[in-house]
Structures are given as structure tokens and as C-alpha cells.
């Protein structure tokens, strides 16, 4: 009969109207600034640089190998190598980025830099409240803005960070074992040299970087 479908539709909207007052399933809106949804662990938006220890400049894992710069699809990473070297987490002297800029107005959050990085130095952040008044400068993040502690990494991506730490520890152990073996061999041979160059940066307390936005 004419009008049947219309009445059915009216019933459906009435159901939803009433339902939106009682059922959380229907009214899924989250009132953003006051309410926030629980952060999803896998979320990614823009990259940041991980550092170990307290001093971000000393602890930066990045060795300025420029692989991410080359692989970045929109070419938003800009790296300048340093002239000198500093020891990395296993104590091997490495060059470090004298300049490391990411233009997040260009970045498309594809995570390819993370995938190609052999040093676990660049990871994806979850901060999304990045509005700025300066269109160019404000969205061009330099080293100091990009550097975030490993603890921060643990708070936003705990599972992934744990895996990374395990991998790094394994690597470090391997290196240390090698060094020790070498040292022992050397000690056995010359019986002189002191053991190990293990100035390893243990997990001291770095400055707590506040997990901004979305973490609550």
C-alpha cells in the first residue's frame, strides 16, 4: 500500500531518536575537548626521534645515515651529517645528525621512514594537536622538537617499544660479548688491557616528556 515504506522509515527514525538517548551504541559521538577516546596503540601520525638516556643530544639513536631521507615518499626529511662523531648506545663512535628537520606540513604519515631505519631511531608519534599559527616555521620540526625519550616511546607504543628494546639489548649483548671476547683474548694475550669499553647508557631517568594529547 502506498505509504507503507514511508511509515516504516518513520518508525525507524523514531527508534533511532529514542535510541540515541538510551544506547551508547547509537550515540557514538565523543565530545572532544572534554572527552577523549582511549588511545589506540598502533596509531601513528608524525615521526619523532628516539633518544636514550637523559641528554637528548647525546642519546639520539640517529646516526644520520640518510636512508629515511632517501626513502621518504614526499621528501619531507632533511638531514645534515655532523663533522665529528660521538659514541652511540653500544659505544661505537658514530656521526650524528647536525641537522634533522621534518616538515610535517608535507609529511604524509606513511611510516616508511620507520620501516627502513636500521637503527630504531625514528618512530611514529601520536600527538595530533599540532595546530600552529605559523604555517611554515611552526610545522617545520627540528631536532630539538623531534627528539623524544625512549620512555615516552614506551608510553605511546608499549608493545612495539618493548620489542625494540629487546632487539637492541640483544644486539648490545652481542656486541658486548664480542668486545668481551676480544678483550679476553687480548687479556689472555697481553694480559694488560682493562675490560670493555662499556660506557653503556643504562636506563637512568631522563626528563619526563609529557605525553601530550590523546594520552588521557
Amino acid at each position, binding site marked *: 500500500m502506498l505509504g*507503507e*515504506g514511508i511509515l516504516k522509515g518513520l518508525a525507524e527514525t523514531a527508534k533511532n531518536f529514542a535510541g540515541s538517548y538510551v544506547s551508547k551504541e547509537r550515540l557514538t559521538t565523543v565530545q572532544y575537548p572534554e572527552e577523549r577516546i582511549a588511545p*589506540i596503540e*598502533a596509531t601513528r601520525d608524525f615521526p619523532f626521534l628516539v633518544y636514550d638516556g637523559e641528554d637528548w643530544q647525546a642519546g639520539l639513536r640517529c646516526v644520520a645515515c640518510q636512508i629515511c631521507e632517501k*626513502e621518504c*615518499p614526499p621528501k619531507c626529511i632533511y638531514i645534515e651529517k655532523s663533522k665529528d662523531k660521538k659514541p652511540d648506545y653500544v659505544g661505537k663512535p658514530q656521526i650524528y645528525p647536525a641537522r634533522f628537520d621534518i616538515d610535517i606540513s608535507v609529511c604524509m604519515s606513511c611510516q*616508511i621512514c620507520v620501516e627502513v631505519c636500521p637503527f630504531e631511531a625514528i618512530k611514529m608519534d601520536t600527538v595530533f594537536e599540532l595546530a600552529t599559527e605559523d604555517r611554515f616555521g611552526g610545522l617545520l620540526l627540528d631536532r630539538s622538537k623531534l627528539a623524544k625519550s625512549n620512555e615516552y616511546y614506551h608510553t605511546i607504543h608499549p608493545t612495539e617499544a618493548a620489542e625494540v628494546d629487546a632487539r637492541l639489548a640483544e644486539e648490545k649483548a652481542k656486541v658486548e660479548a664480542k668486545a668481551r671476547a676480544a678483550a679476553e683474548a687480548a687479556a689472555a694475550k697481553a694480559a694488560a688491557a682493562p675490560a670493555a669499553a662499556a660506557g653503556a647508557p643504562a636506563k637512568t631517568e631522563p626528563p619526563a616528556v609529557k605525553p601530550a594529547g590523546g594520552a588521557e
Partner: protein
Amino acid sequence: MTNPATEYAVGQRVGDARLDGRMVVDPDSGTDLLEVAMGPHHPSTHGVFRMDVALDGERITRLKPVFGYLHRNHEKLGEGHTYLASMPYTDRLDYICSLTNNWAYALAVEKLAGQEVPERAEYLRVIVGELTRVQNHALSVGFLIQDMGASGTPLMYAFREREKILDLFEALTGSRMMCNYMRFGGCRVDATSEWLDEVRKVVAGLPQFADEFEQLLCTNEILMARTQGVGVLRPEVAVSAGVTGPALRASGVIYDIRKVDRYSIYDRFKFKVPLGEHGDVYDRFMIRLLELRESIKILEQALKEIPGGPVMDPKAKIRNFRPKAGEAYGRIEAPKGELGFYLISDGGPNPYRYRVRPPSFVNLTILEDMCLGHNVADVVLILGSVDIVLGEVDR
């Protein structure tokens, strides 16, 4: 083939493809023609799309689609980037279904390089691909009804469901829309069992959504009057014009690449292909709803059967990926139709030629034929029922 009668018969040919199937409209009916440029800033052109329309009263006598406003030379970018770096760009083709775009590209590269994909990765691909199809169909139907003037109610319901699916995508891939999830030889990350449980929960809720949607719309007299007999696309014309996806099946042609190519692991699932009879807007609308239900079935099966194991082929290379010289065309049944990637390799790190065969773009070929003789109001509907995304049309 349950219904041989509706199968597109061999020998049924379109003579002069250009003229056949075109409704002849008398341009000189006495009153003056009104030339209107619908778009690029028009509420229902689904992006920056323009139709140069000549109207006799409100009847369409000529319609020329004009696009390219969003053209960013995607293919040129592809030729300038490595194989891997093009993957995130495919997300931005049909920005509603980034995962199926990933899939099509990954499939083409795998064909080019002869790579294998682990079983679990195939299952994950099917799961995310069908979730993508569900949300695309829900959304496109919502937009269609929105174009019909329904103050947004069905669209909002569609968005409500899509939200849940996008949350799943975010939990798996890290991003809601630009997923960049698949890799040549598998998927980027593995799904946890909690994620799969979440998917099961969402999938269990989908049939109820489909029921509500049907209750709200399918028998609505206004909707039926508006859509039935409007924008008829005859099967011969549809085949000749290369229309694919739900629009083709709404015209009664059995052609679903999931069934034809049996790519990935689609031969393991039991699902049916709904067919329309009239090829009008209502059929295209209904076929989407029915396909949505079939996708739910596939999802249920895939979630039940998903095996363990790795998600990446251990032999696959992420960096310095250089396939041997040669070419390949890989295609999948994307929610909007056949999405193909044609790649030519010269042995270098970048593809020598990187071509996207977007379904929306080819489906638009026939737009004028479907619209002629109809009203302005119908044009909007017909365009909505073709379901285009300008990111894909313009590339």
C-alpha cells in the same frame, strides 16, 4: 551460474559503441536551452567535479563531465619513486578504500616479481579488504540517499558504522584512512588476537545495521519512485564501456573478479554475487546493500578460518627492491569496480611505467548516456549511483 538467462550472452554486440545506447534527445523543443555548469563547487558532485549541462527546462540534453581539478600526476610520481614509496600514495587514490588500493598495487608488484604471500597475510588482506568494501558500500549508499535530499539521516547511520570499521583499521594499521598496510609479499604488521576479536564483534553487529538500513530505505515509496527506471544502463553498453563493480552487476552481468580471477584466497569462501535486472539506480543501490551482506558472510568465514603463521614472506625485501625487467597487470575487485595496476620494470628501483586503472574513471565514461533525457535531480542521483571518488578519477 544459477541464472543463465541473465548471463551476458556472447554475440550480443554493440555496433557503433558511441551511438549505441544513447538516448536521442531532441534539442529543439521550442524553449531555450539553459547551460549550467554543475560543479566544481556543487554540493553533490562528490568532490571537485564538473558537469557541463544543457537543460531544456529541467531535462538534460547534453552533459559533458569535466575533471582533472584534483590531478596531481600520480603516475608520474610513481615513476619517480621506488616501488615501496608508491604504496602510501596508493592510499590517496580512492581515499575511502585505501586498503584495497594497497592490495591491488601489492598484487601487481607480486605478479611482476613473482612473489608469494603467506597464508595468514592473505586472510588478513581478505578481512581488511572486505571491511573496506562494507564501509565503502554503506557510505556510497548513504551519499546516494543524501543526494536524494534525505537530510543526512542514512548517511549518518553509514558513518556511524564506518566509524567502527575505521577504528579497527587504526588499531591494526595505525591510520584510519591512509592505512599503507600491505607490502609486497605480505602485510606490514600482524594482527593480534584481540584485534580479531574486535573484528568479530563489529562484524556481528553489521547485519543489524543492514537490516535497519533496509527498513529505513528499501521500500520507501519516494526512494523507489525516484530511483526505479532512472539512469538505466543496459548490459551490452555496460560491458562495452568497461563499467565494472556493483554498477555492472546491477545491469545483470555476472562479472566479479573475486570469482573470475580467484585471486588471493577468494576461492575458499562461499559467497554469492547479487545481480540486478533493470540496471537502474535502484538496482545499483540494492546491489550495494546485498553485496554488503555477502561481504559480511566472507568476513565471518575468514575470521573463523584464519591460520597462524608469518604475515611477511621472509624472502621479501623492503629496501632495494628491484624486480627484473618485464611488465605485469594486476587487478582486484575493489569496492567500486576493477582496480588494476600496470607496471613495467626496467630492472631499476623505480617502476619504468606505473599505471593505475581506476574504476571510477572508467565508469564515468557512460555518465552522459545514462543522464540524457533525465532531470537535473536525476543526474545527481545517477552520479551518486556510479559512486566515484575524485582522488581516483583525477589521480
